[in-house]
C-alpha cells in the first residue's frame, strides 16, 4: 500500500478511536486555554495581595486565592503554558539526542554500538526520576535546567527504541538495493531508515510527554525545578501543601491540571499505539 494511503487510513482510524477522541478534545482545550491564558486570567498570576490571602473559591476568586493573595485560577491557567512547554521541550531534547544515537548504533553496529549501548545501560541503571535528580543536583534549580534534566534522563528510551527499529529495517531488501545503487550511509540513514522509526517514535513521544510533565512537576514539587513566583503546577502544589487544612484549593486545582493534561496525552498515546501497532489491531 502506498505510504500516503496507509497514512490517511491510520489517521481516520485514529480519529474514530474513542479514547483518542477524548484525549484530543482534552489536549485541544488545554492548548487553547494555555494560549489564551493572558486574556482569560482574571488577575495577574504573580502579583501578591496580602489582603486577599486564602480566600475560598467564590465570586471574587473562582478557584480561590493562595497564601499571598494570588488568584489560583490565573495561576493554574498560566501553569498550563509552562507545563506544556516543559513537556514539549524535554521530549524534544530526548528525541533530538536519542534518535541519532539509536540510528548510528543500530546501523553501524560493532564497537560503536557496544560503547553507545553500554552508556545507555548505565543511564538506565538510575531508576525513574533518579537520573533527572542527579542531573538537577549539579545544575542550578531553574525551569530551563529542569527541561534539560528531564530531557536527558529520557534519552535512553528513544535511543533503544530507534536502535531496535533500525536493526530490523536495515536487513530489508530496499536498504540493500539503496546501498547497491551507491547511496551513502547518511542518505540511507535519513531517507530509508528514519521513516521506519517515525511511527513507534510518535507513539513513545506522545506517551513520553505525559511522563515528562509528571517528572518535571515532581522535581518542581521537591523544590528542584521552577522557582517562585513562577506559576508552575508542581511548585504550586508544594506551596499549597502547608495550607491543606485552611485552603485545600491551593494544592487541589494545580494537581487536577497535571492529571488532566497527562490523561489527555496518555489517551492519545494509547490510541496511536492501537492504530499503529498491527499486533493489537483487531
Amino acid at each position: 500500500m502506498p505510504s500516503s494511503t496507509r497514512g490517511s487510513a491510520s489517521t481516520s482510524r485514529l480519529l474514530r478511536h474513542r479514547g483518542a477522541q477524548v484525549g484530543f478534545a482534552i489536549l485541544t482545550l488545554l492548548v487553547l486555554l494555555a494560549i489564551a491564558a493572558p486574556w482569560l486570567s482574571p488577575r495577574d498570576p504573580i502579583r501578591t495581595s496580602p489582603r486577599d490571602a486564602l480566600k475560598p473559591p467564590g465570586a471574587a476568586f473562582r478557584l480561590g486565592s493562595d497564601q499571598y493573595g494570588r488568584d489560583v485560577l490565573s495561576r493554574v491557567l498560566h501553569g498550563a503554558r509552562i507545563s506544556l512547554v516543559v513537556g514539549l521541550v524535554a521530549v524534544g531534547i530526548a528525541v533530538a539526542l536519542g534518535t541519532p544515537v539509536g540510528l548510528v548504533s543500530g546501523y553501524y553496529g560493532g564497537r560503536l554500538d557496544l560503547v553507545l549501548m553500554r552508556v545507555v545501560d548505565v543511564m538506565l541503571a538510575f531508576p525513574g526520576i533518579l537520573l533527572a535528580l542527579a542531573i538537577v543536583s549539579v545544575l542550578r534549580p531553574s525551569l530551563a535546567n529542569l527541561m534539560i534534566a528531564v530531557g536527558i534522563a529520557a534519552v535512553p528510551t528513544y535511543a533503544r527504541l530507534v536502535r531496535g527499529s533500525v536493526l530490523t529495517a536495515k536487513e530489508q531488501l530496499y536498504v540493500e538495493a539503496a546501498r547497491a545503487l551507491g547511496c551513502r550511509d547518511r542518505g540511507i540513514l535519513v531517507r530509508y531508515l528514519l521513516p521506519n522509526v517515525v511511527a513507534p517514535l510518535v507513539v513513545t513521544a506522545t506517551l513520553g510527554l505525559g511522563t515528562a510533565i509528571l517528572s518535571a512537576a515532581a522535581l518542581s514539587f521537591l523544590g528542584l525545578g521552577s522557582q517562585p513566583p513562577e506559576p508552575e503546577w508542581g511548585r504550586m502544589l508544594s506551596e499549597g501543601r502547608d495550607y491543606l487544612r485552611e485552603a485545600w484549593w491551593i494544592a487541589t486545582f494545580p494537581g487536577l491540571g497535571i492529571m488532566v493534561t497527562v490523561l489527555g496525552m496518555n489517551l492519545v498515546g494509547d490510541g496511536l499505539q492501537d492504530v499503529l501497532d498491527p499486533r493489537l489491531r483487531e
Partner: protein
Amino acid sequence: MLTYITTRILACVPVLVGVTLAVFSLLFLIPGDPVKMMLAEFATTPEQVARMRAQLHLDEPIPVQYGRFVGHALTGDLGTSIRSRRPVAQEIGENLGSTAVLATTSMAVALILGISLGLVASLVRNSWLDVLAMLVALLGVSMPSFWLGLLLILGFSLHLGWFPATGGGDLPHLVMPALTLGLIASAIIARLTRSSMLEVLGQDYVRTARAKGLAGWGVVVRHGLANALIPIITIFGLQFGNLMAGTVIVETVFSRPGIGRLLVGAILNKDFPLVQGTILFVATAYVLINLLVDLAYAVVDPRIRLH
C-alpha cells in the same frame, strides 16, 4: 544454567563500573568551582575552602581521585556528609529500613490491587466493569503521586483523622504513603495483567482445558493467570526501581524519614558527598535487584536460560 548465571552476573560489572564513573563525574559537571558551590551559603575564608578541597581530595589527579572513590565505596566508605559531618554510609544505613519497608509494602499493595483489577477486567471484557476498571487504571497512570498523597492527607488525616499526616516509624504512619505509591503502581500492573490475560485466554491450550471440561475458575487461574503473570514478573524489577524512585517524592510529601528524603535534603543543601553516596547506593541496589529478578526468572522459566 551455571553459564547463564555467570554471564548475567558478569554483564552487571561494566554497568556498575559505569555507574561509579557517572556518579563520580557529577562533581566535575558542576559549573564553576564545586567547593565554592557547596560552601556558597557560608562565609568562608580561603583557608576553609582549601581545607574542604583537601578533605575531598580535589587536589589530586582525577584518575587517583576516581580510584580512591571506588576503592572506598567497595569497603563501604561513601565519604562524609558536609552538613552533619557523619559518614554517608551511616546516614544511609539509618534511613534504609524505613524506605525498604515502604517500598515492599507498596509493592504488595500494587500487586494485590493491580492483578485483581486486571484479572476482573479481562474476564468481563468490554463490559461496564471492564471500562470502569481500565478508567481507574488510566487515572492512576496519569495521577501525580504527590497530588494523590496530598489528597489522602486531606481526606484521611485532616477530615477523618484516621491516620497521621506526617512522620514515620509505626504502622499507622505507613498506611497512607504505602497506599499512595501502591495505588499508582497498581494502575500499570492492572493494565498489563488485563492485556496479558486477554492474550493467554485466547490461546489453544486454554480452549483445550475448557473443552476437557475443567471448571471455569480452574482454567482462569491455572492456565490463564499462571501464564499471564510471566510478563508481570519481568517488569517486577523495573517496577521496583520506579517504586524506589517514587519513595523520593512520597517521603517528602509525608515528611517520612528514608533514603529519598535524605537525597532531596542533600541536593537542596548542596551536600555533595551525601548526594553522590545516596545516588550510588540506590543505583547499585537497583542493578542488583534486577540481577536477582532475572536469576529468579531463569529458575522459574527454563526458556530463558536455554536461550
